[in-house]
């Protein structure tokens, strides 16, 4: 019975998005407080119903209801309970329901935490979010219902894709979706501002915390995805420039640009139409990502069951959503032109360059992702664009961006006077270059100029990020959460750059065959296979090797890499053994049995690889700190208070 309840709840949830959209938008136009109140109620109702619907599906997984097609396709009675629950979002239909739940949660959050924002504005925002929810709910109901029954019921399920049977699956997709869909909030604020024809620094102050939090989730989602791919795919790579990774990375880049552009809009009332455009683009790229993943137009290791019907729906949705917003932009953006200028050397210029470079990187990635498809559509043959293109295309705009980040952080608004900070910056630069060369030579040995550049940039950005708050304190300014967050995030970027530069320059790997008793050496570590054994998991069988790692006779670690065969789907899976130290990872992954009792193995030495994810999480932490700046919670200006009061009296 339970999935029918879930289906019914979902239909009702869809129905509630319509009054949410109508009364939200119309209530703001006709200034009717009770319509606006009705909108908020619809938001709560929609959230509760979506949550009920999701809980019903999860329950079907929990009780192994194999009369539900989606459960039968993605679960199995032998699957451990935690993965049965996580399997709810393990495939297309359920993950969309999770997506809708994330959207409902964001909408509810906007409705609750918008006390400092005039009701009319909130009402418009909720109305726009209602339209988006309506689209996604309709998408699930018409093309991707997870509630379909299977008759006759299956005796047992076909099991969850073994790749997804991992703690990473439990948290990576929800984080990712919350981040993706969170970008709908700045989108909705942008549309609301264009409808109203009013955009000022107060508006920017409303949008900034929401953008930050969405960006934080997206950052965590992408980082977790990278970490998961690293240890679960067993190849030891941390980023593959796969179409789906790109799809998640593009909204992140534009979101990053948006955060910086919003800063200018708030502080100086500039870049207004640019900020609007970025708000629209960030969310549109999220939807585009969904389209790429679910429609089957691009090949990817993340292949969801693809279906052109679904693709057509999302494409239409993307066209309507982004098309109407950009149409509105073409009509309204001229309103937001400003005549205030800024000097060529100023905080504004640095942030403008930051934006241009981030958006440029996004376009290059978009081009690389879609290029094979364009060629195919023009009948010019099938090709694939690989990491060599992306590595370079991404590095070209990112290098100058990281170089300019440090002076940008220290530049003043309007017109930067580097007179006082020039000396400090030059000292920092010299220290960074020396430290970069020293690290390359002393710790790891000469590799290439790029390595030294990478190291020096890491020190350059990291030191500047640490010095900035100190010099502010010296000048007698107090530190706001916004400033601390900025420093933390930029320091995270430095940690990330250091991790990438070291790993890419000094990683070592070796493919070889070992039999029990044999030893191999890599980067000064001795790897000895001490035994091979068969292991039985809950739903898989595995061959497990025991690898003892020593260095100069001292034992470092004992690893247990496995080669698993999952019983139901018969997929072989490599479970790498990883010894994770702070400054290096040692990985052992098993290949194939070679018949004579030996196995092919891949040994890898990855220096500083952990810094990549630590840096990314630090960036997220910075974004989170900045989102809680006190000024975002302050009541609105007198002017807006009047507008709000107007509504109450009508």
């Amino acid at each position, binding site marked *: 019975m339970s999935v029918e309840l879930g289906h019914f709840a979902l239909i009702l949830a869809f129905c509630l998005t319509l009054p949410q959209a109508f009364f939200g938008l119309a209530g703001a136009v006709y200034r009717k407080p009770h319509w606006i109140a009705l909108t908020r109620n619809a938001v709560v109702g929609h959230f509760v119903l979506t949550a009920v619907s999701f809980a019903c599906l999860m329950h079907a997984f929990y009780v192994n209801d194999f009369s539900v097609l989606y459960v039968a396709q993605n679960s199995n009675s032998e699957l451990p309970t935690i993965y049965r629950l996580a399997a709810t979002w393990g495939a297309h239909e359920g993950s969309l329901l999770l997506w809708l739940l994330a959207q409902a949660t964001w909408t509810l959050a906007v409705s609750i935490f918008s006390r400092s924002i005039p009701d009319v504005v909130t009402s418009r925002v909720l109305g726009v979010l209602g339209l988006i929810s309506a689209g996604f709910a309709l998408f699930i109901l018409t093309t991707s219902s997870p509630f379909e029954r299977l008759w006759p019921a299956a005796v*047992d399920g076909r099991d969850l894709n073994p790749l997804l049977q991992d703690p990473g699956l439990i948290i990576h997709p929800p984080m990712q979706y919350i981040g993706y869909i969170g970008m709908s909030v700045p989108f909705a604020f942008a549309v609301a501002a264009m409808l109203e024809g009013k955009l000022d620094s107060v508006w920017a102050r409303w949008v900034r915390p929401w953008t930050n939090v969405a960006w934080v989730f997206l950052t965590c989602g992408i980082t977790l995805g990278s970490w998961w791919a690293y240890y679960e795919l067993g190849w030891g790579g941390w980023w593959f420039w796969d179409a789906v990774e790109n799809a998640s990375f593009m909204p992140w880049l534009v979101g990053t640009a948006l955060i910086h552009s919003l800063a200018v809009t708030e502080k100086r009332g500039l870049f207004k139409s640019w900020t609007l455009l970025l708000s629209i683009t960030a969310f549109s790229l999220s939807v585009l990502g969904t*389209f790429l993943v679910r429609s089957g137009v691009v090949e990817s290791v993340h292949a969801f069951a*693809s279906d*052109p019907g679904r693709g057509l729906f999302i494409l239409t949705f993307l066209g309507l959503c982004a098309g109407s917003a950009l149409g509105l932009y073409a009509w309204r*953006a001229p309103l937001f032109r400003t005549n205030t200028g800024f000097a060529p050397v100023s905080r504004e210029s640095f942030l403008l360059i930051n934006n241009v470079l981030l958006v440029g990187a996004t376009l290059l990635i978009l081009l690389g992702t879609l290029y094979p498809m364009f060629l195919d559509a023009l009948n010019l043959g099938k090709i694939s664009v690989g990491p060599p293109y992306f590595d370079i295309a991404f590095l070209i705009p990112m290098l100058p961006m990281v170089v300019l980040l440090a002076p940008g952080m220290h530049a003043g608004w309007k017109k930067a006077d580097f007179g006082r900070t020039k000396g400090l910056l030059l000292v920092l630069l010299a220290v960074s270059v020396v430290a970069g060369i020293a690290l390359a030579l002393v710790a790891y040995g000469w590799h290439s100029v790029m390595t030294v550049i990478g190291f020096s940039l890491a020190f350059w950005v990291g030191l500047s990020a640490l010095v900035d708050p100190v010099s502010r304190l010296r000048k007698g300014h107090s530190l706001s959460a916004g400033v601390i967050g900025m420093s933390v995030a930029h320091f995270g970027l430095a940690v990330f750059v250091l991790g990438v530069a070291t790993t890419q320059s000094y990683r070592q790997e070796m493919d070889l065959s070992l039999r029990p008793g044999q030893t191999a050496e890599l980067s000064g570590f001795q790897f000895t296979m001490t035994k091979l054994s068969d292991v039985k998991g809950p739903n898989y069988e595995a061959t497990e090797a025991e690898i003892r790692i020593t260095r100069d006779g001292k034992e470092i670690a004992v690893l247990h890499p496995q080669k698993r065969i999952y019983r139901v789907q018969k997929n072989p899976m490599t479970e790498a053994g990883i010894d994770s130290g702070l400054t290096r990872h040692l990985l052992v992954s098993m290949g194939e049995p070679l018949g004579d009792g030996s196995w092919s193995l891949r040994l890898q030495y990855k220096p500083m690889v952990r810094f990549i994810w630590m840096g990314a999480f630090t960036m997220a932490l910075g974004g989170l700190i900045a989102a809680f700046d006190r000024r975002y919670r302050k009541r609105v200006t007198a002017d807006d208070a009047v507008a709000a009061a107007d509504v109450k009296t009508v």
Partner: protein
Amino acid sequence: MLRYLIPVGLLAALVAFFFVGLGRDKQTLPSPLLGKPAPAFSLPRVDDPTQTVSNKDFAGQPYVLNVWATWCVGCRQEHDALLAIAARGEVPIVGLNWKDERDLAQQWLRELGNPYVVTAFDQEGRVAIDWGVYGAPETFLVDSAGNVIHKHVAPLTVEIWEREFLPLLKQQAVSR
């Protein structure tokens, strides 16, 4: 101000391209094998390792290839349906025993009844890879010209047989 129209113009171009891309994929998506010649195989028989079975044995006539294994619960579930379909004698059913143990497979056929005219023993799963098998049970319909014309994933029932397989078989008979 024309420049404010640029973003919406770019979007329109992008959507148009995707629309074309989507149209193209429609033809290739369902199953790469449909309409193509069935992958050739030659495997030992499950009941007698000294004899082989190959799809050449069925050249010129339609047949059904059913992928099964003793570890597969769905296969046990569909077994009665397979027996019923086999009893109708409309088309020979060839078994492909997949990643299994020979004695277990023989015991299964003895105890549950044998719907197959012959069963091939694919212990390594190599033939199944050629056929694009994702999991068991899967059932393929091959026409008299040797082309795969239908694929069913999940347990077969008599109802599904009559709805999806029989019409295709009848078409075959008419066009011949």
